[in-house]
């Protein structure tokens, strides 16, 4: 039987009801908190999570956080504000640039970039992108930088520079999470994590950064299902149709370029197909590509699962503490 895109169809009403019931039950009974904190980026994932939180608990029990920094897009923050207004929730906006400067986020990153691109400096913008996996090669990161005059450079990143750029950039997600927990603690609320299934399965998150949360209400949903839910929930148009970006580097960047290698709809179907044991030939037919490329897609998905497995692990204990082992 041919692989059909219909496998990703979702009954948004039923799913929203189910998630809201889960949110109410989890917050009250398991977490024993009084409300939810959601950091709203201006993208569809956090928008859907915020709307679900409001539907589940009411606007008076949801705090929205808007946490821009000097390299995040002004439109993202604007969209986040429009959602806060639509949902009628309390919100706090804090520019995290001074915190990131104090931690050395930009300095550490820029020094690593300069080592591979000596001309890099003020006025330049940059991003990193994953390459190799879909051609059957080993994944590696490339640095793409653009000078103020438009001069563009691209180089392969070596180990030290790659690790340092990622470590420095991860300050952004970790600072945001620190603030989310500050506000959650002061209000006795729980923190919502907003990954979709692609991000959760493929390890596209920062450990103890955006990967940290008390509850992740849409981690089981494919990205196209999140859009379906967003439309059903009546999110503002700019958010309901926002393309997945990283909003992390100074050059504009899609999530597919940084990490996933495929546009999200194709990635959804590939992930579904691999998880349901569909042969590569059927995926190739559905995507209109070659069987070899479909095999490389499967290999790439498995490689990312393997490489990021540790992100899902709790801290390992080397002796049993049975009294707390049953806590999920």
């Amino acid at each position, binding site marked *: 039987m041919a692989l059909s895109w219909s496998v990703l169809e979702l009954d948004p009403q039923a799913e929203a009801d189910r998630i809201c019931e889960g949110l109410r039950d989890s917050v009250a009974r398991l977490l024993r908190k009084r409300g939810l904190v959601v950091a709203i980026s201006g993208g569809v994932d956090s928008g859907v999570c915020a709307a679900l939180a409001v539907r589940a608990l009411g606007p008076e029990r949801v705090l929205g956080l808007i946490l821009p920094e000097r390299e995040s897009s002004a439109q993202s923050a604007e969209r986040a504000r429009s959602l806060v207004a639509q949902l009628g929730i309390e919100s706090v906006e804090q520019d995290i640039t001074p915190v990131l400067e104090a931690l050395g986020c930009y300095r550490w990153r820029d020094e690593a970039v300069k080592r591979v691109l000596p001309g890099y400096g003020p006025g330049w913008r940059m991003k990193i992108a994953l390459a190799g996996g879909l051609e059957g090669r080993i994944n590696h990161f490339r640095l793409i930088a653009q000078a103020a005059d438009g001069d563009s450079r691209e180089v392969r990143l070596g180990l030290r520079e790659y690790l340092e750029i990622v470590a420095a950039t991860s300050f952004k997600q970790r600072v945001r999470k620190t603030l989310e927990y500050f506000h959650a603690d002061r209000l006795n609320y729980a923190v919502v994590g907003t990954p979709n299934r692609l991000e959760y399965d493929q390890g596209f998150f920062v450990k103890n950064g955006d990967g940290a949360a008390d509850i992740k209400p849409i981690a089981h949903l494919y990205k196209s299902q999140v859009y379906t839910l967003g439309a059903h929930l009546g999110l503002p148009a700019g958010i309901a149709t926002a393309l997945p970006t990283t909003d992390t580097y100074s050059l504009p960047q899609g999530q597919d370029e940084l990490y996933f290698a495929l546009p999200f709809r194709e990635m959804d179907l590939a992930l579904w197909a691999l998880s349901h044991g569909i042969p590569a030939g059927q995926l190739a037919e559905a995507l209109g590509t070659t069987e070899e490329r479909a095999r490389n897609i499967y290999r790439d998905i498995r*490689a990312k699962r393997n490489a990021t497995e540790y992100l899902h692990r709790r801290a390992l204990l080397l002796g049993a503490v049975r009294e707390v082992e049953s806590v999920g």
Partner: protein
Amino acid sequence: MKLHGELRQFILDNYLLTRDDSSLGDSDSLTGRGILDSTGALELVMHLEERYGIKVLDDELHPDNLDSVEKIAAFVERKRA
């Protein structure tokens, strides 16, 4: 065989954190055994470039060149030839 021994030792020392020579065969798949992921591959490339004075090109970042001690040794020998 000196090259095989050096490469095996590098992987034992840095990836498996062991001195037990028997824990890695020269033909063992490093990705198949979960020893080498994309970050590990970058580390291996850095070592090969620094230790053996070769330049690994983008197209050469391939499991055929890097997935076992045997394949790495053959790749280094080809590059040095």
